[in-house]
C-alpha cells in the first residue's frame, strides 16, 4: 500500500501547505522586506512558483501512485492536477490579454489627449488640474504621463523624484510581476494568502522604485512629492480605498520622513 509514490506525494503536499500558509504569513509580517525589497520580491516569486508546482506535483504523484491500486480514484486525482494547471495557466493568459488590450486603448487615448513633454523623452503631459503621475508599460514604447496639476505643484527636484520613480517601474518591468500576482489572486479569490501576496508585491515594487528615486534626489524631496500628490478628497468624503493600509505601505512613507 505505501509505495515511494505516496511518500513523494506526502512530501510535496507538506511543502505545498508550508508555502501556502505559514511561510507567506511570516514574510508578510517580517520587517526586513522594507529594508531589502528586492530580496523579498524574489522570495515572493519563489514561494508562488514553488507553491504552485509542489501542489500540482503532490496531486500528480498521489494520483499516479494510486492508479495501480484503484484506477478510477487515481485517474480523478491526476485529472484534478491537470485541470488545476490548465485553470491557472488559462487564467494568467486571460488576464494578460485583458491587460494588454486595455493598455493599448489607454495609449490610444493618450495619443489623442496629451502632448509630448517639451524636454523629456517618452513623457506626455495631460492638461488637467488633478495632480497625477503614472506610467504605461508597453514593450519598447513605455510612457510616463504627468498632469499639468502635478507640474504646477512640484519643485524641479520633486519632479525628478517622481520621474525617477516611474522610470524605475518601467525599467525594472514591475508591471509583469504585478500582473502575475494579480492574476494569481483573481484565480484564487477564496485564498486570502494570494490577496496578501498581491498587496505585498504592490508595496514592494513601490519601495524599489522609491529606492531608485532616492539615488537621484533627497528622501525629503521624494517625501514631499508623495505628500503633494497623494489625493485629498475634494468634498472630504471617505474614499473607497482599494489598497487596505498595510503596515508595509505606511513603513514606505515613514522611512522617507524619519
Amino acid at each position, binding site marked *: 500500500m505505501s509505495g515511494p509514490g505516496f511518500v513523494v506525494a506526502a512530501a510535496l503536499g507538506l511543502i505545498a501547505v508550508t508555502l501556502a500558509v505559514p511561510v507567506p504569513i511570516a514574510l508578510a509580517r517580517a520587517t526586513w522586506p522594507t529594508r531589502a525589497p528586492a530580496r523579498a520580491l524574489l522570495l515572493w516569486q519563489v514561494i508562488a512558483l514553488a507553491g504552485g508546482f509542489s501542489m500540482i506535483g503532490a496531486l500528480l504523484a498521489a494520483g499516479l501512485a494510486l492508479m495501480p491500486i484503484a484506477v478510477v480514484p487515481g485517474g480523478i486525482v491526476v485529472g484534478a492536477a491537470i485541470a488545476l494547471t490548465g485553470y491557472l495557466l488559462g487564467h494568467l493568459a486571460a488576464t494578460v490579454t485583458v491587460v494588454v488590450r486595455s493598455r493599448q486603448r489607454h495609449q490610444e487615448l493618450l495619443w489623442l489627449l496629451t502632448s509630448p513633454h517639451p524636454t523629456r523623452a517618452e513623457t506626455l503631459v495631460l492638461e488637467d488640474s488633478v495632480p497625477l503621475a503614472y506610467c504605461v508599460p508597453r514593450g519598447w514604447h513605455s510612457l510616463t504621463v504627468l498632469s499639468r496639476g502635478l507640474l504646477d505643484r512640484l519643485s524641479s527636484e520633486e519632479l525628478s523624484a517622481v520621474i525617477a520613480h516611474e522610470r524605475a517601474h518601467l525599467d525594472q518591468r514591475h508591471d509583469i510581476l504585478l500582473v502575475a500576482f494579480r492574476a494569481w489572486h483573481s484565480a484564487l479569490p477564496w485564498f486570502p494568502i494570494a490577496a496578501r501576496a498581491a498587496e505585498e508585491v504592490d508595496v514592494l515594487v513601490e519601495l524599489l522604485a522609491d529606492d531608485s528615486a532616492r539615488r537621484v534626489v533627497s528622501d525629503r524631496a521624494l517625501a514631499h512629492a508623495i*505628500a503633494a500628490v497623494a489625493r485629498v478628497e475634494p468634498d472630504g468624503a471617505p474614499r473607497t480605498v482599494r489598497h487596505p493600509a498595510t503596515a508595509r505601505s505606511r513603513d514606505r512613507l515613514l522611512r522617507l520622513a524619519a
Partner: protein
Amino acid sequence: MANLGHLERAVMHALWESGTSLSAYDVLPRVADAASGKQLAVTTVLTVLSRLEKKGFVSADRSARPHRYTATASRADHVAELLHEALGESADRRAVLERFVGGVSAADAAVLRDLLSNRADTA
C-alpha cells in the same frame, strides 16, 4: 507613417472643435493649419478618419455624400475616461498603470504630511 499619430490628434481636434459632423473636405483645411501649413491630400485625411473609426473614436455617416464623420465622444468625456483609469477607479484595470501614489491611503498621506510639517517646525 510616423506622423499619422499627430494627424489623428489634429483630426480629432478638428472634429471636437467643430462640434458637428464633418466630411474629409471640411477637415482638410483645419488640419492643414495644425500641421505647420503643410498641405495634405484628401486621401490621407480619409485614411486617418478610417483609422480613428476603427479605434472607435469616430463614427461615419455613409448615407451622406461625401461621407460625414462625427466624434463619438467629447474631448472632456475622453479625458474623464483617461483619468478614471489613471486614478485606478475602474474595476479590473488596476494592472494597467502604475501610479506614483498608487499605494498611499489617505490616512497614510496625512501621517506623512504631519511628519514633514513637524520636522519643518523643529528644523
